[in-house]
């Protein structure tokens, strides 16, 4: 089997300005944050981002990396809105395709099936169609019904964070919800997976049943071992969301000066520096509680 291990920097170096990137996970859950942070450090811009969004979207938008956003929502779950995203949205500076969540998934399924669209009932009668005037409806060839023809959401690169992988890129999701990461990979030309831990293939079933092996290496271009790579979003069962840090992110994002300080403290260095800064943050929080 091929050895697909690589460094974060190598994966991100292959992403070019103007590309369409899909980001797996859901809201503030199992987002490939280490890859997102590496993207923030790169000079890539003009991206089209495809996401059921959380802080991945907020951070990339605030850093000026995003030209267009194809999304179902942007939320931090325990905190309903991401201030970085809402601020950009209210400035009216983003090109947007807003979908109902089910429509979004239908678009991924179309891409994964190499179809230019798939029909769905979701969206009919709503203002999703008015907001996206390029969206078309289609008449059933079998009845009088009218459906939304959701265009395929294809992407150049999909970015995913997983619990485990082997060196060949057989991917394991151990948490209760795999979200749509398998579909992202099937809808993309290339897929990079950051993973909590790379384990020998024969150990893949040590921690979960075969049902957890939801993404085969045939869809995976490269794997990157990034412990805590989803921080501060969830990566169940390895760790939950860092709620304290997420609150700090939100509070900082609401104020330009505080955001500059946040960026300097957490996002100016590499991944090791980020995690060291997070540790300092928690140590200080504990001190202030004493």
């Amino acid at each position, binding site marked *: 089997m091929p050895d697909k291990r690589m460094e974060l920097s190598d994966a991100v170096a292959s992403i070019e300005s103007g590309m369409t990137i899909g980001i797996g996970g*859901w809201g503030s859950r199992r987002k490939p944050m280490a890859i997102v942070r590496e993207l923030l450090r790169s000079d890539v811009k003009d991206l089209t981002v495809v996401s059921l969004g959380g802080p991945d979207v907020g951070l990339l938008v605030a850093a000026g990396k995003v030209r267009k956003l194809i*999304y*179902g*929502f*942007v*939320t931090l779950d325990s905190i*309903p*809105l991401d201030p970085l*995203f*809402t601020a950009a*949205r*209210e*400035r*009216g500076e983003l090109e947007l395709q*807003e*979908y*109902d*969540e*089910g*429509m979004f*998934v239908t678009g991924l399924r179309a891409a994964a099936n190499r179809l230019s669209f798939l029909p*769905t*009932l*979701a*969206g*009919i*009668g*709503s*203002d*999703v169609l*008015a*907001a996206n005037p390029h969206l078309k409806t289609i008449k059933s060839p079998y009845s*009088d*019904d*009218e459906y939304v023809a959701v265009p395929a959401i294809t992407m150049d690169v999909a970015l995913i964070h997983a619990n485990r992988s082997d060196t060949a890129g057989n991917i394991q999701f151990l948490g*209760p*919800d*795999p*979200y*749509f990461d398998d*579909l992202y990979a099937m809808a993309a030309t290339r897929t990079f997976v950051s993973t909590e831990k790379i384990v020998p293939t024969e150990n893949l079933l040590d921690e979960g049943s075969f049902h957890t092996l939801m993404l085969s290496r045939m869809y995976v271009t490269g794997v990157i071992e990034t412990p805590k790579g989803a921080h501060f979003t969830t990566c169940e069962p390895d760790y939950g969301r860092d709620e304290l840090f997420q609150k700090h992110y939100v509070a900082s994002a609401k104020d330009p000066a505080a955001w500059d300080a946040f960026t300097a403290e957490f996002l100016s260095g590499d991944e090791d520096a980020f995690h060291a800064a997070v540790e300092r943050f928690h140590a200080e929080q504990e001190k202030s509680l004493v």
Partner: protein
Amino acid sequence: MSNDVTIAEICVAACSDIYRDSGELLAHAVGIIPTIGARLAKLTHSPDIILSDGEAFMMSEPPELGKSAAHGGTIEGWAPFSRIFDIVATGRRQSIMGASQIDQYGNQNISLIGDWKKPKRQLIGVRGAPGNTANHRVDYWIARHSSRLFVESVDMVSGVGNDRAKAAGLKHHHLGVIITNLAVLDYDENGRVKVLSVHPGVDPQEVTDNTGFPLDASNAPETRLPTDAELLLIREVIDPRAVRNREVPVPQPVG
């Protein structure tokens, strides 16, 4: 017991009533009062409804409010997000959703305030509202009945209202009721919002005054009170920590 019933408890019982004829389908409830209502329904008149824990599991025995199946409760099925959309498409689900705006035909908005291109306030997006209203029964829960929420026209139709659904020919569209802290609303034969009942202790005029479109509450009957058995379940089994009072903030004694 019933002489100290709160508005929150009346709303819980009204939410529970939504599931009376549901049978075996997934009860999806957004918010504290609807969640308590769905659990009350399961423990009383509708034992066959299927509850989700808000994460990836269906539960046959609801755990304590606010805890997922991982913290107790019996898992009877697996429902990650990918399955949820499949369930929505089959119609075997029913939702109580919230709303930021609702108009007189039940068009609901949770996406944004202002113009779509440059909103005054970005809200949470349309989320699943278009798909839910196209596929299965949807009811709404409004913790604060106000004329800012019940408006002449909504800024972005997220959940599809009766006029839009009829014009678009949606076959599975079904708006149930709107439960607020003042009243229970439903729809007349033309699909317009009307008053089904006003909560005990609420002046009907207050309902009209707090609605941004014409709504006559003068002849409406009173919303039913929860039974003693229901109150016992709400207070001692489902919500012993009285989380319900956070959503309808001041417990308002009535009767």
